[in-house]
């Protein structure tokens, strides 16, 4: 079973995503802030990371950075309401994220992208 780490501070969004991904048979883990996220990446070594950009304590960009260094093979999907800020998107892709999904988003679409990446 593939393991997915969801780093998102909005509980409603994260539980929605979690619910959807569980339905597809993934094992999911939820953390709600940047510091926890970085710890969880190293502790869990998941197969995929879904992360928000704006979060307490450590930004999503920092998380991506960390993941790139310590676990360079884990694909990352960025889920962000910062879709407006071009720089963030560019930066995320620069760091080699697999996908960038701006909020508002469609959980079904997210599930399809997850499936494609994890194939």
């Amino acid at each position, binding site marked *: 079973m593939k393991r997915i780490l969801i780093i998102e501070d909005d509980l409603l969004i994260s539980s929605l995503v979690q619910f959807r991904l569980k339905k597809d048979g993934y094992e999911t883990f939820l953390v709600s*802030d*940047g*510091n926890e996220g970085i710890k969880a990446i190293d502790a869990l070594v998941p197969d995929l990371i879904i992360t928000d950009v*704006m*979060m*307490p*304590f*450590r*930004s999503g*960009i*920092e998380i*991506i*950075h960390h993941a790139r260094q310590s676990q360079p093979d884990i694909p990352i999907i960025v889920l962000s*309401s*910062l*879709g*407006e*800020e071009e720089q963030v998107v560019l*930066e995320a892709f*620069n*760091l080699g994220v697999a996908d960038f999904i701006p909020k508002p988003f469609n959980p079904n679409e997210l599930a399809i992208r997850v499936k494609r990446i994890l194939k």
Partner: protein
Amino acid sequence: MYSFLFYLILEFLGLMFLILSFSVIVIYLILMILSAFEMRDYIRKNRFADYGDIITSPIAPGVSILAPAFNEGQNIVQNAQSLLSLHYGKFEVIIINDGSKDDSLDKLIQAFELEKTNYAYNAEIETKPIKAIYRSRNMSYRRLTVIDKENGGKADALNAGINIADLEILACIDVDCILSSESISRMVRPFMEETNKKVIAVGGVIGIANNCDVVNGTVTTYRVPETQLGKFQVIEYFRAFLMGRMAWSRINGLMLISGAFGFFRKDLVRAVGGYFPKTVGEDMELIVRMRRYMDEQKIPHKVGFVPDPLCWTEVPEDEQILSRQRNRWMRGTIETLQLHQAMQLNPKYGILGMISFPFWSIFEKSAPILEASGVIYTLILLAIGDFSAVYFIALLAMMYLLSLLVSSFSVLYEQIAFNHYKDKKDLQKLIWMIITEPILVHPKIVFWGVMGHIDFIKGKGGWGIMIRSGFKNAEEKKKLNPQVTSS
């Protein structure tokens, strides 16, 4: 003949104290009412606002956060990290290492992979020399700039930050403050609501973090501090920084926003020449000078205030440190009022000149002296067995109850608006503090205030003279000869 003069003075003083006491009562009642109205409107307005919109909107102004640091090595990295993860779209963080003697700079360089840059620093506002300006190649830290400069005090460090700040709004904060992740978007709102009155600055509330649990840069569990002075300051913060400022903001008469958490319009701060490093009350002085400048330019303006709890700090619970803080505040107040004495009762400066300024002169600046002499007066009356001593004892009792009234109102006020201290025991502790504070703590505050006056009078010569004679207009600070400023 002499006895006649003695009685005359006694009578006169008596009348003066009577007038003063009653005006204190009337003013505090008015302040309570005004702040209640302001808070009601604020809460209503907040009910349907979505601050998430500000974060992503391209319309929202950019914010440069300026955080001066002096010997903060222990927590500087953690503090910088939480500043960098604030929720906002367009912002930068400028940390100014003000000649720290510890390893602050090394720690920053290491943690954020900083490198020296060829930044073309231009001292538009005169400051102590800059040693270097650092940035990081790591994209995660692209918002961060660190200035390393020679020590020159908080105001001087902020001025260096103002010189290189790139965005429209300046957020001047203490680096050891704990900021809520929402703080920028909330504080920027009054600037965004500006229509026909220029919003020149926005002040925020400082919460007391002593004895509270802090998780990831936000206070999660509130607890009243253990010590008497700590608890006293909780009450005082509600009273002065929540209720008082709310009331003044209602009539657009704010003269002071906290130096630990204040937002300013950059172009205006630059137009008046930044902070004035020669006063100990640089935060109050800047606001007064900015407002004075706007009035002199005849531009309608206002200073906003956001009562949401967004910033927390540890307050001194040690008597020595607190006494020094209060002494400094008092000197800062006196100096600011001296520097801008031309505004006193001058209709040209509107509400500021006619209401706020006189209020500060009488009730903030002279309060400790008036209070102390009031008590001495009553003692004299008692000693000579004058019947009117009864009045003054009654008057003292009335003032005590007024303090009780105002304090309990402000605690209630906080409770209605935010309800932070969830534990019933905390409330009981606060109530006990409200009752005992006027007797146990207040005399100390009065004493420290009087000491502040004495120290101000002692500090003669050099800048003392300049401060005593005051600025002729708001722009005079800019014209000061740099040789003199760096003396």
